[in-house]
């Protein structure tokens, strides 16, 4: 087991190296001079040149790469071109809303999708089943920002139940924080519910045909126990796999949802950095998201053993 984790962790290194090199080269080898953007429209070429050398952009490309990798390994990710801060500080400031959004989304999505999926499988072919299937296709087809604006329109503007947008730190006002998390996480959660409900239905449906389900029923166990303890648990591996794949959707979706709801998170930071050509920030954010994505999928692979003792590494 430990051996497996160690091997997988080592295998992550080349993947991340490819990400780092790719992101770095992608930004450096394309036209568009960040120094010119920083200097503004009225700057002279001397001023632009001064900024270029201050940012280290006049160094040979491999020197720049080596400096950057040094910064990454030191954990500060270099200094932002725009804010007088290291990128690590910038990310630390912005990480809370994104983490909160991702957590709330997962909680909402799982607590909706698992019962829906199990119910659809249990009542296979019924109206509920059709509804769940139709909802899951629809969930994939409506862009999250359209869902977001529809929710804002109904619940914040027409009904006035919840605030339209904004963010309050969890430590400042917990109730205000929760109020502002409901709509964003519902918005982001819809596609997740669609994804998870669909796979839950499919895998529970497969498990329900197994002999041990018949045995469980024959023992006289209630439907709830059969479905939750026997069926869902045995259907857990594909569901977990899909949650892992869905993390990419969560990250991409957070960029959009944070823009719609004005959350000052990492997704917003990404868009700001991209628009202002803040290379160190773009590199760091992409690298960070990729690390998170890969690590979560590793965690999920490890967690298979919890749900299915037949799996051994």
């Amino acid at each position, binding site marked *: 087991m430990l051996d497996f984790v160690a091997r997988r962790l080592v295998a992550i290194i080349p993947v991340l190296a490819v990400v780092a090199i790719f992101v770095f080269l992608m930004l450096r080898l394309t036209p*568009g001079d960040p120094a010119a953007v920083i200097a503004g429209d009225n700057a002279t070429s001397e001023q632009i040149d001064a900024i270029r050398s201050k940012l280290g952009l006049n160094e040979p490309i491999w020197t720049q790469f080596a400096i950057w990798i040094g910064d990454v390994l030191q954990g500060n990710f270099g200094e932002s071109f725009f804010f007088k801060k290291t990128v690590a500080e910038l990310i630390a400031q912005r990480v809370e809303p994104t983490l909160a959004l991702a957590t709330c989304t997962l909680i909402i999505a799982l607590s909706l999708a698992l019962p829906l999926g199990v119910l659809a499988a249990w009542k296979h072919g019924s109206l509920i089943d059709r509804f769940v299937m139709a909802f899951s296709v629809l969930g994939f087809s409506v862009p999250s920002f359209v869902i977001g604006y529809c929710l804002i329109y109904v619940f914040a503007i027409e009904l006035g139940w919840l605030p339209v947008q904004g963010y309050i730190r969890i430590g400042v006002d917990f109730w205000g924080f929760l109020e502002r998390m409901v709509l964003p996480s519902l918005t982001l959660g819809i596609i997740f519910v669609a994804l998870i409900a669909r796979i839950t239905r499919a895998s529970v449906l497969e498990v329900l045909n197994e002999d041990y389900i018949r045995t469980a029923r024959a023992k006289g166990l209630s439907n709830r126990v059969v479905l939750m303890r026997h069926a869902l648990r045995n259907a857990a591996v594909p569901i977990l796999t899909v949650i892992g794949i869905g993390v990419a959707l969560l990250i991409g979706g957070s960029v959009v949802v944070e823009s719609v709801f004005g959350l000052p998170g990492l997704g917003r930071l990404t868009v700001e950095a991209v628009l202002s050509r803040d290379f160190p920030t773009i590199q760091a954010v992409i690298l960070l998201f990729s690390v998170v994505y890969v690590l979560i999928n590793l965690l999920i692979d490890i967690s298979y053993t919890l749900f299915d003792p037949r799996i051994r590494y």
Partner: protein
Amino acid sequence: MIEDVVDSAAIASASTKRRSLWALAIRNSSVIVGGVILLIMLAIAILAPVLGTVDPTRIDPAARNKKPGTEITFRLDDGTTVKRVVLMGTDSLGRDVYSRVIYGTRVSLAIGVAVSTIAVAIGLVIGLISGYIRWLDGIIMRIMDGLMAIPGILLAIALVSIWRAGLITVIFAIVVPDVPRVVRLVRSVVLSVREEPYVEGAISVGTPTWTLMFRHILPNTVAPLIVQGTFIAAAAILVEAILSFLGIGIPPEIPTWGNIMAEGRTLFRVFPHNILYPGIFLAFTVLAINIMGDGLRDTLDPKMSKKV
């Protein structure tokens, strides 16, 4: 993360029964429903100029922010005026939202088709090379793993921002994150097919590599690629809308559904129609492609349908 294992027996039987499979596919109810909606969308795109539209880029300061159904006075180029009811209202520059939505159909369909065709073509070539030339396989797949580790939308955002926004750059920015997925699919088909007796037989009688690839291996990739291509097209239309919505996609004067919605963001509280109507068109189109994709997958690629 999970290696896509393709059942070679299913592929082999699929290729011998190819003709009957296609007949099955076009009789599948999901394929028909999705296909009909898409044909309607295609008709809208082609017939845009004759569907009662005006120039979608025409700015009319006198008719800004009209609600749907308002009658406005429309001044023609020769100075005469006509009354015109704006079905979907106007935006904050006085452009007719109905005309923009109708013309937007062209851009979205073009993006869907272009992205899926290019991604499948590039992925097919790289996948065939990777599956067939062993010493390149390791290098190519490590690069693809790296690309796949970057969440797709993030990569597209980064790419489009460094290549100045335009139709072509947006298409390629959406293509790049899709390529590794196609490569893995093609490679897995090639790896399983090349062990088949009929391929070994073809090698043993001295069939040239190119003939082998095109006649014996390539046809096996067609069914899964068509299924994959449909889903890529659906996702591409969504990603284009997201990029335009974030303000980093296709230049704002070009009428696309994402651009109309981006423009409608600021005044959303008062005039939700700017987001609602293009949103409905967008959802309908993507829904139709997804439904069709589900139907195609069930008939052409039954092995994959079990994996959802």
